[in-house]
């Protein structure tokens, strides 16, 4: 039982965070090497752990704070799935951010909070008990606030305030639910779901609702999604990291944990709370897509698309069937890859061509071919065209829906696919088929920006094409569902 590895993984982003805070503004090389080094070390550790876990080893590290308050880091397949996603994407986003910012001001503070945020995400993924999940969940909120408010101007500060205004009440609800549950069942560990016999079904439903509100804020479920579009005022790497990897996925991951490790799929079905959650997720999917249609800014449209896409995962988790679960989990990875690609491209358009509005995208394909190809791949993946990643997850979600006896899920999927097409195809049409305006400029002479986008685009493509192989996210997700939460 090697306790060092999870702590090492956590430290690999905590240490760079701690050191970077105190670096002077102009020591760029030291800061960049520190952060990139941390990312590489984390990736290496995770890959090494992948092989070890495949070989049957298990890792656990615990730090007792007070009786009943134990910080537990435990590696299970679900945790591995999420930290591998966050590690790879963090590595790429760091490269992208270094290029994106160049020598702008306040970078030490940015990269400090940047790695702190990823440390929180890793801790959240690795946490083995409900209370350590909550502690990292809170740390994530605190470390993302300065990132959103990085530019320190009026819009980004108000965006940060809106973010806190949603996040803090959410975390209060989450804490309330945790304590309400733990006061009856004692400390909840994810190793074995607690016996919920001590609480009556009404209380349990209340607790479940509070849990969903708590994590739902970050998973951007409909009534609680207001902060996501507002956060577009943040710089591109932040919105990329926030919406593809850290915050939003943490929320979805939380929903999965709550449903499968705290309550257990059978209890969720027994309590009959799975159905309303699925409906809520579906409403979010449709509502997100409709709102995305009405946006004229690229990043706003992507934000609303994220709101709807994350609810696929929630939908997958809510439908108490293994296939839906696989669809949800695999979408966690796919959506991460596709969405980060599109945010990278949006950032490149903004940085290199000064383009923010969709109307200004005319003829961009000719001038910035690489970015536009990646953007199109991402968009088509989102729509769910067959060979790409999006299709795989939607396919499994549909099967899961049928298996769970909820045929209306198919309707939702079809509707959302059409809506996705409706709000992404015009962009592609403008990119490739409309002539560019005369004064349009734009070049791709920043390889450090374009390469990460290309890498994530090819990964999104590869994940879709090679879905059948065991090491692909799909294979992995089926392994998780089979081993952890068997039908």
């Amino acid at each position, binding site marked *: 039982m090697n306790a060092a590895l999870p702590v090492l993984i956590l430290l690999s982003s905590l240490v760079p965070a701690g050191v970077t*805070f105190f670096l002077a503004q102009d020591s760029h090389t030291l800061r960049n090497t520190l952060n990139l080094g941390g990312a590489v070390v984390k990736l290496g550790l995770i890959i090494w752990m992948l092989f070890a876990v495949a070989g049957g080893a298990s890792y656990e590290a615990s730090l*007792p*704070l*007070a*009786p*009943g*308050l134990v910080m537990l880091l435990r590696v299970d397949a679900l945790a591995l799935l999420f930290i591998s996603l966050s590690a790879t994407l963090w590595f790429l986003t760091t490269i992208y951010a270094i290029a994106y910012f160049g020598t702008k001001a*306040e970078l030490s*503070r940015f990269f400090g909070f940047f790695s702190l945020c990823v440390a929180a995400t890793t801790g959240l993924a690795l946490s083995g008990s409900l*209370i350590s999940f*909550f*502690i990292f969940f*809170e*740390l994530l*909120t*605190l470390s993302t606030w*300065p990132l959103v*408010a990085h*530019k*320190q*101007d009026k819009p980004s*500060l108000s965006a940060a*305030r809106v973010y*806190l205004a949603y996040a*803090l*009440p959410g*975390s*209060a609800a989450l*804490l*309330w639910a945790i*304590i*309400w549950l*733990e*006061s*009856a069942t*004692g400390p909840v560990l994810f190793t074995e779901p607690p016996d919920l016999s001590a609480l009556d079904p009404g209380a349990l439903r209340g607790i479940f609702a509070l849990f969903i509100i708590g994590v739902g804020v970050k998973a951007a479920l409909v009534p609680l999604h207001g902060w996501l579009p507002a956060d577009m005022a943040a710089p591109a790497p932040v919105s990329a990291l926030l919406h593809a990897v850290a915050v939003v996925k943490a929320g979805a991951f939380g929903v999965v944990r709550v449903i499968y490790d705290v309550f257990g799929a059978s209890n969720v079905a027994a309590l009959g709370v799975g159905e309303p959650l699925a409906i809520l997720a579906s409403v979010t999917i449709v509502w997100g897509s409709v709102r995305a249609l009405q946006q004229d800014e690229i990043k706003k449209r992507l934000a609303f698309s994220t709101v709807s896409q994350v609810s696929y995962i929630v939908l997958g988790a809510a439908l108490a069937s293994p296939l839906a679960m696989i669809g949800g989990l695999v979408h966690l990875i796919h959506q991460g890859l596709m969405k980060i690609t599109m945010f990278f491209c949006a950032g490149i358009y903004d940085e290199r061509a000064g383009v923010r509005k969709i109307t200004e995208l005319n003829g961009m394909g000719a001038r910035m071919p690489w970015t536009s190809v990646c953007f199109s791949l991402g968009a088509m993946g989102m729509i769910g065209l067959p060979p790409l990643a999006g299709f795989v997850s939607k396919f499994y979600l549909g099967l899961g829906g049928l298996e769970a006896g909820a045929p209306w899920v198919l309707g939702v999927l079809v509707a959302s696919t059409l809506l996705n097409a409706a709000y992404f195809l015009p962009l592609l049409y403008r990119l490739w088929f409309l002539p560019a305006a005369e004064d349009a400029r734009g070049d791709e002479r920043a390889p450090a920006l374009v390469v990460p986008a290309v890498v994530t685009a090819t990964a999104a493509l590869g994940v879709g094409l090679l879905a059948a192989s065991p090491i692909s996210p799909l294979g992995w997700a089926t392994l998780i569902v089979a081993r952890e939460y068997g039908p």
Partner: protein
Amino acid sequence: MTALVIVLALPLAGALAVIALPVRAAVPVALSATALTALSALVLAASVWQGGPVTLMVGGWQPPLGIALQADGLAAALIVMSALVVGAVAMAAWFEMAAARAGPRAAFGFWPLMLLLWGALNAVYVSRDLFNLYVGLELLSLAAVALVAISGTAQALVAALRYMIFALAGSLLYLAGVVLVYAGHGTLDIGLLSARSPAPGDALALGLMTAGLLAKTALFPFHVWLPPAHASAPAPASALLSALVPKASFLILIRLWFEAMPELASTAALLMLAGLGAIAVIWGGVLALVQSRLKLIVAYSTVAQLGYMFLVFPLAGGDGSAQPWAAGAWTGAMFQALSHGLAKAAMFLVAGICIAAVGSDRLGDLRGLARALPMTGFAFALAAITLMGLPPSGGFTAKYLLMTSAFAAGQWPWALVLAGGGLLAAAYLYRPLAALFTRDARLPVHPVARAWQGVPLALAALAVLLGLLSAAPFDLLQIGRPEPAVEGL
């Protein structure tokens, strides 16, 4: 044992030396006395950690005649916290209360008053004799009023006067209780009182003493004197006043209600105390929302944060003390006392630095200060996290323990107060945070020494560390508790 004597005697001796010695020797003597006492505080905590409560019969006389002093886990934890806060305040005062900046009078008066306040605090933490607590409280109040009056402005004098009136009224009510206890039982020692059969006048005595101590702890109806007093005192002084002084009278309340006369704790009285605490949390928070000066926001936040500690009474007091969750609630309240002390002192020192940098602590003038003073901004953020009770800070551990006990005891409204209070704290602390972090700085910023900025940062980091490494303080607090913690919740 000698560590306890040094902790009690050295601050007083230091104060006397500082008064007697020529002015230029004052600061070095004061700083060395502070360092030595802080060291012996740690040694005391270590000896309490290993050998259990340290008792000392002053002059060798047994309690009914003599005065017994006892440093149990709670007293040791509070002594260490006070040592850390006073140490930090001393370092900050080395910059802020220097004669060049604060004038010869304030520079002469601050150091002895700080040391006297510290001596009185340590005396009150460990004393087991009710009248000795009265004299300790009086010394504490006089030193505190003098520290408020040091800044010399008109509203400081008014604040000091109002503080004086409340403190005197509180002391006299407490004295009335002590008189009744002595008349009834012939002894003033807490240990002996708990052993004796209750006399009819005890309820009245406890009521009078509690009323007096509530006035000195500035709980809700009696809180009017605290914000102006803590806002108009110089920043290091208000750090001492807010972080430490109310804790002493709160500790006496705990000694009375949990050790001296536990059987008198009727549920109605306990609920009333916690009810006042709950109102204080809401009232302090709402008023802090509407203030426009940083020091007033932080002062009203003290009124609110003190309210949390009173939630311990219904959860762990009276017949509830035998319940399994009583230990969690009791320790949670003490964690709140410790983490609030550290965080509040850090916040007031940050306010002091802001005033030194831009000359005023109005929120409008503080805009964009974090760009010029990044460490100060970060210190304020860390302290704010502790006061909001967000993990991983000590405030969170306190809130967690109290909420879990509230749920286990089935009294969930107190958990509602804790959760709502946390959000309210987030609301009123967000305004200064946002002001510090905006970009458009209006006023020219005078340079502030980095070492000075480091002091609040260290304190705030300690408050957060208290949350991360909360296992050790948790066990220290259990030593010498009337009913040692039942393992687990």
